[in-house]
């Protein structure tokens, strides 16, 4: 059987998490290639809809990565993001999905190691959960999509 390789979207704020990801790269600290980053100026910009849409389009897991608590460059965008992630967790729970498919992670710009470690941990969590419920029942989605 083919090993399940989850698709994971990480919304990363420009100031901390995105920089930390670059830092992980420049230090050549490996993390799973499953994680793909979408850059936002601040995690406060990440709308619950964006997270939901990521799932809709086929993500197996989504996380929002922002600055450390209290370190947001826009005061409290990361705290807002945390609540929005919780909102999505509730919706997922209502739909009978595992809440762990969405998470909020905090790190500073210098924490390349943390970026890599959390990316790995999140990927492992999603691997344990298995494919998104969408994929199990609806494989057509991938057939419609471009073969990479």
């Amino acid at each position, binding site marked *: 059987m083919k090993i399940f390789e989850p698709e994971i979207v990480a919304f990363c704020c420009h100031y901390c998490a995105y920089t930390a990801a670059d830092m992980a790269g420049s230090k050549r600290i490996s993390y799973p290639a499953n994680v793909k980053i979408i850059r936002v100026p601040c995690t406060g910009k990440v*709308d*619950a*809809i964006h997270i*939901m*849409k990521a*799932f*809709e389009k086929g993500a197996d897991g989504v996380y929002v990565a922002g600055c450390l608590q209290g370190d947001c460059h826009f005061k409290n965008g990361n705290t807002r993001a945390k609540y929005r992630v919780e909102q999505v967790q509730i*919706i*997922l729970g*209502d*739909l*009978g*999905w595992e809440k762990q498919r969405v998470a909020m992670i905090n790190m500073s710009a210098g924490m390349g190691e943390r970026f890599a470690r959390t990316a790995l941990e999140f990927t492992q969590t999603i691997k344990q959960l298995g494919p998104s*419920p*969408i994929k*199990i*029942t*609806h494989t057509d*989605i991938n057939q419609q999509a471009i073969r990479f």
Partner: protein
Amino acid sequence: MITAEQKPLNEILDYISPYDRIILVGCNECVTVCAAGGRKEVGLLASALHLNFLKHGRTVEIKEITLERQCDPEYAEELVSEIDRTDAILSMACGCGVQTIAARYNEKPVFPAVNTKFMGASVSQGIWEEKCQGCGDCLLGITGGICPVARCSKHLLNGPCGGTSKGMCEIAPDVDCAWCLIWERLKALGMEKRYEEIMEAKDFRAAGGGGPRRIIRKDLSL
């Protein structure tokens, strides 16, 4: 403003699961302001519905439309072009909006996606409180601008019951005793005397006791 809250997803799903094509209609008035049924909530609910259907291997067409004001028939017309291509309508407006849509498109099932809660005001970001029950006979002029009908748990019209404690209502420690507020306000206005007048039993016809209420402005209704 009218406030509302989204219904539990399961209830919404029960309503719409028989259908393959749905219009999800938001409203850009009250329910937008109270973050229950504006464009954003429409998008979020649509996404949640998609996720649910996809999980069951179904692709359901969900058309997202947010009307300027669902409770006006003219705005409801905006759905005309879509109505033939839909099996059901899910409305995120208050009960008034849902009924306007249902009346206009009586050939299609119309379901509410929110529970209309109360007429309230925003206390601070994200918090709304009931302030009016639409009793049709406003008492605010004699109660210092604080409504005992809406804000006293027992709708008492002649002063606080014995359950008030430190200015709070007996039903919950975070609910103000309306009568304590009224009293403080009357004192501040030097209108203590007003309290001693007995407020007679209310005529509830104005509050809907006389059947669905109606306002007619002859000058406008020509």
